[in-house]
């Protein structure tokens, strides 16, 4: 599904930048599952996945012509995804301050076993205990981003990424209990 080589991807991005709809469509199809996975890891909510993924790809299409280096498309796309999810989580937090009665409606946890195996439930539970920034960090690593790319996405140094990643992994492991009953 995904472009087979970095060159093929860069060519596809260039075509999409010129407004080629078929290329834009192919980019979305190629990355929709990965972006959806990232959004789900960040929010822990199945019902947010389609809306947020759509927001990410609309931003992508709008801003594509401003991407200077087509070879860095993936890092750029996941930066958009991270920022979109963090904005959404911030808005949700703000809304809770102003509409306190809405909280119970907003945080309906998916029951254990509703989304998959015991391991997946445990991972969802463990991710939910982390800060959004740490969730983003772990999800970016799972996406195969290098430390240098993550440092660029988060506008920080490689050393800081390594340190934060170590702490995030520790926290995840602390909360990861495959027999946990949510």
């Amino acid at each position, binding site marked *: 599904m995904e472009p087979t080589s970095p060159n093929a991807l860069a060519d596809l991005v260039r075509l999409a930048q010129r407004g080629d709809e078929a290329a834009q469509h192919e980019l979305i199809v190629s990355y929709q*599952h990965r972006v959806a996975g990232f*959004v789900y890891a960040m929010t822990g909510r199945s019902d947010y*996945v389609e809306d947020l993924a759509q927001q990410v790809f*609309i931003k992508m299409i709008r801003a594509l012509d401003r991407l200077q280096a087509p070879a860095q498309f993936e890092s750029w796309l996941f930066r958009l995804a991270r920022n979109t999810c963090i904005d959404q989580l911030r808005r949700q937090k703000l809304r809770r301050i102003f509409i306190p009665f809405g909280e119970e409606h907003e945080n309906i946890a998916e029951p254990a076993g509703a989304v998959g195996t015991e*391991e*997946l439930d445990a991972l969802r539970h463990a991710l939910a205990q982390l800060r959004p920034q740490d969730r983003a960090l772990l999800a970016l690593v*799972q996406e195969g981003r290098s430390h240098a790319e993550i440092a660029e996405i988060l506008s920080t140094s490689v050393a800081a990424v390594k340190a934060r990643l170590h702490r995030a992994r520790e926290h*995840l492991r602390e909360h*990861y209990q495959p027999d946990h009953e949510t």
Partner: protein
Amino acid sequence: MKPEEYAWRQLQTHAAAQLRRGFADRVLRAARGPQDETWRQLQAHAGAQLRPGFAARVLRAARQIPGVPSLRDQFAFSAATVALCVLTVVFIHSRSVRLEDERNLAGWEQLADEVQDLVHYR
């Protein structure tokens, strides 16, 4: 067996009975942390939330939502707004000044007429 030794055995047996089956396996899985396969499951579950035709819907939505105006457009809009406000203020000011002048002039004319009438009577 000494009574205290027996008691310890009892305690141990009771404690061990609290551990559910598969305890060692669960401990190992927790200690290893989530495996790549679990992350893949997470991604697959998330991917399944996207309804068919997702890409086409995104492209349609991107075309329908008006784009964010450029910085140049925003400046042009601000300049036009400022110019309109200045013109409105100038127009209202000049109109009120003209009306005030006309009122003053009418007052002076009336005064001059009254003075002339007075001179005429004398």
